[in-house]
């Protein structure tokens, strides 16, 4: 047996190296394209701080949480068992000239939990959800690429009322994927 192993040592080593290498190469292509087209690399920003991302400055200026059971919640026609979370973000698009476009982003709200502080539940913007809440005059309801001066937008999220206060805004710009901003609230 030992002799046989010795005689075939090169072939055995080749199989031991090439077989896993083949599997790794086959799956790594698919896996890396999966990872690079999704928001998998957060740039975490502590509460109240500003961050530069996609050539612009971003900062959460204000947050508010309104219960569906409160007067404001009833006025906003929130679904039972929900809270409305309003997140106002200041955007400084940087030095742009007329005709340029500032960043277009997608925002979502995550609830974070566990030893690794991972997002356990995520909610999308409630802009078209049918609630009766309108952002104040002059305040945008999301990223506005046509605005090249500093501006603010307020995103609305309808979340479950049992969600904790350990929340963060996931701000994505498609050109920057897989990186995204995680603005802690």
């Amino acid at each position, binding site marked *: 047996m030992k002799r046989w192993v010795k005689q075939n040592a090169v072939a055995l080593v080749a199989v031991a190296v090439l077989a896993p290498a083949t599997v790794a190469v086959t799956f790594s292509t698919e896996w890396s394209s999966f990872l690079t087209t999704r928001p998998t690399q957060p740039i975490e920003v502590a509460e109240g701080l500003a961050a530069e991302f996609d050539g612009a400055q971003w900062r959460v200026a204000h947050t508010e949480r309104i219960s*569906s059971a409160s007067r404001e919640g009833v006025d906003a026609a*929130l*679904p*039972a*068992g*929900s809270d409305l979370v309003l997140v106002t973000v200041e955007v400084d698009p940087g030095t742009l000239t007329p005709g340029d476009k500032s960043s277009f982003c997608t925002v*979502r709200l995550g609830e974070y939990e566990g030893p690794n502080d991972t997002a*356990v*539940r*995520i*909610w*999308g913007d409630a802009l078209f*959800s*049918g609630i009766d809440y309108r952002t104040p005059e002059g305040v945008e309801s999301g990223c506005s690429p046509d605005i090249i001066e500093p501006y603010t937008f307020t995103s609305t999220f*309808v*979340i*479950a009322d*049992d*969600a904790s206060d350990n929340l963060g805004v996931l701000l994505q710009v498609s050109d920057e994927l897989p990186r995204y901003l995680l603005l802690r609230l």
Partner: protein
Amino acid sequence: MTRMTALKRVANGVGLVVVLAIAWFVTQTTPTEEEWQAPIVVSGDLGETLTGRNIEAVVSEVRIAESVTASNGWAGPTSGVWVVVDTSVSSVVDDFGVSLGTAELVIDGITYSASERPDDGTIARAPLTTAIPLTGPLMFEIPRDLVESEAAASATIQLAVNSDPRADSLLAITVDLSALPLLPSVETDEPIWGAL
């Protein structure tokens, strides 16, 4: 031929047979493309809360009627019958681009999709929210003689997020349609977003 050489040949032969047997076993047990892409089925009964990867639902009531009128006034005349399924459904982890894309009734291997004709009177294809249920009716139009068939005793309601449930959770609720009375008409409730 020495005794040692003969033994070696026998050992080589046995080795070859073992390798061929393993190859045959692997071939026979390798999942087909359809199998490894198949939905992950979560089965349950009426009134039971079923939870999948990103969908949670409970089917509270099933009725069969000759005609149905939705909360928005839509009335559905049919030469068959309507199976009305009252359901409460939400997403579990993420609601980005998530809707009740799969709402089907399977009887005897034939799949009937929930009607979208009632528009906002049904929750078929409605967007879902994480942890906030959407409650409302699903209407299935099926041939009249099917409800009296033996297969109707083991009909299955299938629910999943988005229209292609492959490699994702598929909630399956078995109902005995043959045990339900055929009502002359049913009026459905308005879909409600939020806890009941």
